[in-house]
Every structure is written in structure tokens, then in C-alpha cells.
């Protein structure tokens, strides 16, 4: 009897040990549901075979991911070892201590997969907060002007180089209800500032000053807002509800002459299966504003999604290994070709012959990336709410329900309250 119970106990202990070992090398990751993610998911078995680390990948639509991630992070359960963090909300997560700083890991724990020197510098900068790097860029885009080459040729119009010319060009193509001159995001809330405040920026406007006080009621910013309103007079009538999806659709359905949005559109709009206008598109840098030349102030429309490691993760080493693998040059090259993915962050891939030959406009995208500034909007823990305030007021101005001066004055006051409440300025 005693011997049997001894056997049973030792069996239980051994199985605990074994399962303990098996549990230790498991990484869970949560990210957006995109072509890139799907492409990577398909390649995961290769990684698992090479390293013996078990990876489980969960994908969610963009709109719900952040909610789920923050709730998990705030409750400290460590359910996800790796998660997607947009560069503009990175400050919020970093301040809260949700993210594991990566500089140490890069210096002392780089694996064979590491491609740290290959990431575009602008994207890396965008994922730094107070000097530390918190995520590796997994996806990135900058703003480019995409236009109907055929329409421009037909009318003999040249590609606009300044915001003045842009306005004139948009007017020249404005022929409702068949054709509209231009379309950019103007939907209320957080969606539009990435582009609308690119415009206010090239007009010399800033969100905040050095002491984090809001400055959106200053003349330069308001000039920029007025420009956006005037420009969008030549846009489809419902432009004030346009998110990037509607901008892309208005272009590919052949309604609009020019759009300014993310460089990762290229992969989709040049795909004849999903775009009526593939092959008829020209690419150029977004026109420069009156405040400074393009090299100094470019309408950046910059965004990069980084993959960060949960500070509460119990598998930091394994997670770090996977992170390096999934953002490595090799993997990026494969997803670029297989997934119509032009949101690549690896310089090698971006400048490769294959990539440049597969998609037009890459040279423009690279130039835009060079000129882009990752600080045209502030890296701050209350970014989301500030963005919503600015975006909603600008959307109101475009829709005609608000006057620019009053709108931005209200925005400024509201921003001040938020900044105080979140401890970003002393009351």
C-alpha cells in the first residue's frame, strides 16, 4: 500500500515538473486581424519547430483590440505576452508601466533572428518614449498623395506641389455628382487628426507647447483648420464621415481625383481584384505648406504599429525571441509578397528590387518616410482623448456645424482640462 502511494506521489511530482517545463515555453500574442497577421500566423509552425516554443496568436479587429488589451493590462493578468501597440498610444502604456523596455534585451539578449539595425529609423523613433524603446515596428505607414494619372493627363494638369496648388487642382476636378477633387479622412473622433493635423502642422500649428499646454487656438493652427475645410469643399458631400475605408473606396470606385492617406493603400489599390483603377494611379509627396519646405515639415500622416512585450509576462525571453522573429527581415519579405502588404518596416525589404518592382510608388513612399516626423503629434498618456477632442471639432468645422475659431477655442479649453486631469500639466 505504502509503495503504491509512493509511486503515485512521485508520478504526480514528475508530471508536474514536465508540464511545468512545457508551460514555461509558451507565448501568447494578440494583434490586429490583417493580411500581415494572417500571413505570419501561417508561418508560425516553422518558428515552433525551430525553437520548441509554443505560440498562440489571437487576432481581433482594430476597433476592439485596444479595449481588450488595456483591460487585460490594467488587471495585470499577463494573459498576453506580446500585444500590438500603436505608436501614438505607446506613451500611455509606457507611463502606466504596461510595457517591457527593450533596450536591455536588444543589447544583451539579441538572437539570430534580430534585425534591429534594419528597421526604418523613423518608425523606431516613433516607438520610443522618454528615450527608451518599447516595441518593435511591425507595421508602418506614412502619408502620400495618390492621384488619377489618367484624369490629370486628360486635363493636362500638373501634380500640385504646394497647398495652394492642391486647392486649385481639387477645384479643377470638382464636378459633382460624377467627380470630386479630393478626399481625406474627416470622420469625427480620433480618426482624422492623423491627416488633418498633418495639415495644421505644415501650416505651423502645434497641438501642445513645450510645457504641454494646448496651442490649438493659435492662428497657425486655425489657418490649417480653415485650409482643410476649404479643401474639403471639393470633396464628396459626406466626407465628414470618411474613415480610411471610405477614403479608399471613394478613390477605387472612381469618384475622386486625389486622396492623401496611408502608404499601405498601395498594396490594395494596385490589386486588380479589389480595385477598379489599378494601374491608373500616380503617386507623389503630399504638397508642402506655407510654413516650411517639405524637408522640414512634411504632412507626415505617420503611424506605426509596434509589437511590445507585457511587463507582467512570465515568458519574457521566449516572447522576445518570437518578437524578433516575427519582425525580422526574412519574415517581412515573405509577408510583403504574399499578403499585398506595403506596410513594411524593414529598410532592406523596402529598398529591395522585388518590392519596388511589385508595387509602384515605393520611391515616393521612401522619400515620404525620410521627411516624416514622428513627433508632429505629442507622445503623451492622454493622446486618445486629446485626439478625439481635436478630431471631433475639426470634423464639425468640415461638416459646417462649427466655426473654426470657436471650435478650436473650445477644443483648447477641453484639452486643458484633460491634460490637468491626467497629470500631464500641474493644475
Amino acid at each position: 500500500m505504502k509503495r503504491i502511494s509512493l509511486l503515485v506521489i512521485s508520478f504526480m511530482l514528475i508530471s508536474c515538473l514536465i508540464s511545468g517545463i512545457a508551460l514555461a515555453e509558451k507565448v501568447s500574442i494578440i494583434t490586429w486581424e490583417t493580411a500581415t497577421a494572417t500571413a505570419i500566423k501561417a508561418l508560425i509552425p516553422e518558428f515552433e519547430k525551430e525553437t520548441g516554443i509554443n505560440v498562440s496568436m489571437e487576432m481581433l479587429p482594430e476597433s476592439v483590440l485596444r479595449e481588450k488589451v488595456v483591460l487585460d493590462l490594467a488587471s495585470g493578468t499577463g494573459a498576453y505576452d506580446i500585444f500590438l501597440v500603436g505608436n501614438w498610444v505607446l506613451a500611455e502604456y509606457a507611463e502606466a508601466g504596461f510595457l517591457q523596455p527593450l533596450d536591455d534585451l536588444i543589447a544583451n539578449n539579441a538572437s539570430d533572428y534580430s534585425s534591429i539595425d534594419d528597421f526604418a529609423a523613423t518608425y523606431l523613433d516613433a516607438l520610443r518614449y522618454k528615450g527608451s524603446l518599447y516595441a518593435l515596428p511591425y507595421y508602418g505607414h506614412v502619408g502620400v498623395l495618390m492621384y488619377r494619372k489618367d484624369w490629370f493627363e486628360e486635363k493636362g494638369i500638373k501634380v500640385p506641389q504646394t497647398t495652394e496648388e492642391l486647392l486649385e487642382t481639387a477645384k479643377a476636378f470638382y464636378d459633382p455628382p460624377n467627380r470630386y477633387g479630393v478626399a481625406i479622412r474627416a470622420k469625427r473622433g480620433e480618426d482624422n487628426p492623423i491627416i488633418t493635423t498633418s495639415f495644421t502642422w505644415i501650416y505651423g500649428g502645434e497641438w501642445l507647447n513645450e510645457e504641454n499646454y494646448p496651442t490649438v487656438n493659435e492662428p497657425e493652427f486655425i489657418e490649417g483648420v480653415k485650409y482643410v475645410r476649404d479643401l474639403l469643399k471639393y470633396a464628396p458631400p459626406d466626407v465628414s464621415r470618411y474613415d480610411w475605408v471610405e477614403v479608399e473606396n471613394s478613390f477605387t470606385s472612381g469618384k475622386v481625383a486625389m486622396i492623401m492617406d496611408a502608404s499601405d493603400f498601395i498594396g490594395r489599390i494596385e490589386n486588380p481584384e479589389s480595385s477598379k483603377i489599378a494601374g491608373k494611379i500616380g503617386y507623389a509627396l503630399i504638397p508642402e505648406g506655407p510654413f516650411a519646405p517639405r524637408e522640414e515639415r512634411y504632412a507626415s500622416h505617420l503611424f506605426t504599429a509596434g509589437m511590445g512585450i507585457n511587463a507582467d509576462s512570465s515568458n519574457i525571453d521566449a516572447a522576445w525571441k518570437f518578437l524578433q522573429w516575427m519582425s525580422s527581415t526574412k519574415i517581412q519579405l515573405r509577408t510583403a509578397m504574399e499578403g499585398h502588404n506595403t506596410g513594411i518596416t524593414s529598410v532592406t525589404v523596402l529598398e529591395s528590387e522585388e518590392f519596388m518592382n511589385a508595387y509602384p510608388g515605393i520611391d515616393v513612399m521612401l522619400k515620404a518616410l525620410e521627411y516624416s516626423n514622428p513627433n508632429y503629434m505629442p507622445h503623451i498618456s492622454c493622446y486618445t482623448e486629446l485626439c478625439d477632442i481635436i478630431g471631433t471639432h475639426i470634423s464639425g468645422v468640415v461638416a459646417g456645424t462649427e466655426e473654426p475659431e470657436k471650435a478650436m477655442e473650445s477644443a483648447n479649453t477641453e484639452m486643458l482640462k484633460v491634460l490637468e486631469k491626467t497629470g500631464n500639466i500641474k493644475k
Partner: protein
Amino acid sequence: MNHLSEKRIFYVMFLPAIIVLVIITLFPFIYAVFVSLTDMQISRPQLGSPFIGLRNYLDLFTGYRFWNSFKVTFVFSFFALLFELLIGFGLAYLLKDEFRGRQIVIALLIAPIVIPPIVSGLTWRFMYDANIGFINYLIGFFGVNAQAWLGNPSLALPAIIITDIWQWTPFVMLVILSGIQAIPIEPFEAARIDGASNWQILKYIMLPMLKSVVLVVLLLRTIELFRTFDTIYIMTEGGPGVVTEAMSIHSYLQGFQFFNTGKASAFAMIMLVTIIFICQLYVKYGGGNPDAE
């Protein structure tokens, strides 16, 4: 078995259900009240969650966006409810008597209720599209210009109201119809014998006897309209500007986009109190005991 131990058994069997109820509803509610008095911001744990008393409530009551959301919710709920009641009652009245194909008509009319609000909202959003939408195509036949329905600040809220009316009028109709069918036949027969007209029957017999049914529908629909989120969010996300930003949308933004947890809890409390107040009004002025008449 004596009376006392029977009672004990009764309580003991009841206990698990009570415990679950307390954990799932009472405890979170009390916690939410508590959180509404703090400045909890779950994505900014570094700020702590200092107790700030009624500051969240004060901030809300002095914010224009809060009152705007109040207004939007009321306008939306009022007009949706008004039309749903009128049309719903009208349909129920038409369908109360048997006719050929009645069951089929009822079945078809009920269809909108079973569609998830998100799906309905998304479909209507495409129908309202300024360029490729079905609605603009239809009104084109009547010589009306294409409208930017969801992009026009004056048309966005009416458009959403129409969507809600389409989806929920059948529900109102269904409840009122069953109410009509539950009325005993004798008063009607008596009235007919006395020579009452259809209109008199409707006004003096049917409507009074439907009072409690209408009250139920009113309560249910009001509560649901107040909380409507899916449809509005998927169609306009509260825009253009803030013209369709209902209370549900704004509190969602506060709680799950900006993570101002304390403020969002305060918002939820305000919504709760408002809704209880409205329901009490209904019961007081609209209800009463039909048997007492």
C-alpha cells in the same frame, strides 16, 4: 417534517441563487458607485485612484458634450418611440382580425426583430451611402436629389431614427396585438349591440383595456432606446460632429477609449437615475390598476 425545518430548507435552497445575484449585480453596482467618486483611470494606474467625491458628476454636468448627449438621446428616443407606437398600434389594429394570409404577413413583419442590431445598422449604413446607396437610388425615382444621409448633420439623426423604427416597430406591434387578442370579447359584442361605431369602440373600449399593455411596451422600448449603442455606433459613431452622440456612445468613449473609468461610472449612474425617474413617471401617470376602473 415540521414547519421550521421546511422553512430552513427553503432558505438553504434559495441561498446559492441569492449569492450569485449579489455577486453579479449588487456588488458591481456598489463598486461602480464607489468608483464614480474616484478619479480612476485604468490606463493610467500611475495616478492612483484618488477619492474626489462628486467631482466627476460636476465635470459632467458642466460639460457641453454631456448635455449634448442628453439631448441627442432624448430626441432619438422620443421620436423613435412616438412613431413605433403609432405605427405599431396601427399595424396591430389592422391585423387583429383574421384574413387570408394573415399568418404570413405577421411572420414577414416580425423579421426585422431577429436581426442583430449591428447587422441592421451596417446594412442601413450601406443603404444610406451617398454614392452607391439604395435609398438615394429609390428617391431618385421621385425626382429627389441624392442626399449625404449620414454625413449631413441635419439628416444623420433622422436617418438613424428611421432605422430603429424599421427594426423595432414589429416588436411593438406584436405586444399590442397580443394585448388586443387577450381582451375578452364580451364588451365588444355588447358595444356592437348598442350600435357603437368602430371609432367609439376603439376609443372607449379597446384603448382603455390596452393601457397596461401599452405601458409595458412603453417601459421596455424606452429603456432599450435609452441604451441603444450598436446601431448608432456602427452608423455614425456619434458624428458628424456630435449630432448623433447619444449618452451610450459618449459614456462608451469615456470608459473604453479614454479609459476615464471614474467619469464613465458617474455617467452610468446618471443614466440609471434618469431612466428610473422616467419609468416612475410612466407608472404614476400612465399606469394604475385597470381592474379598478
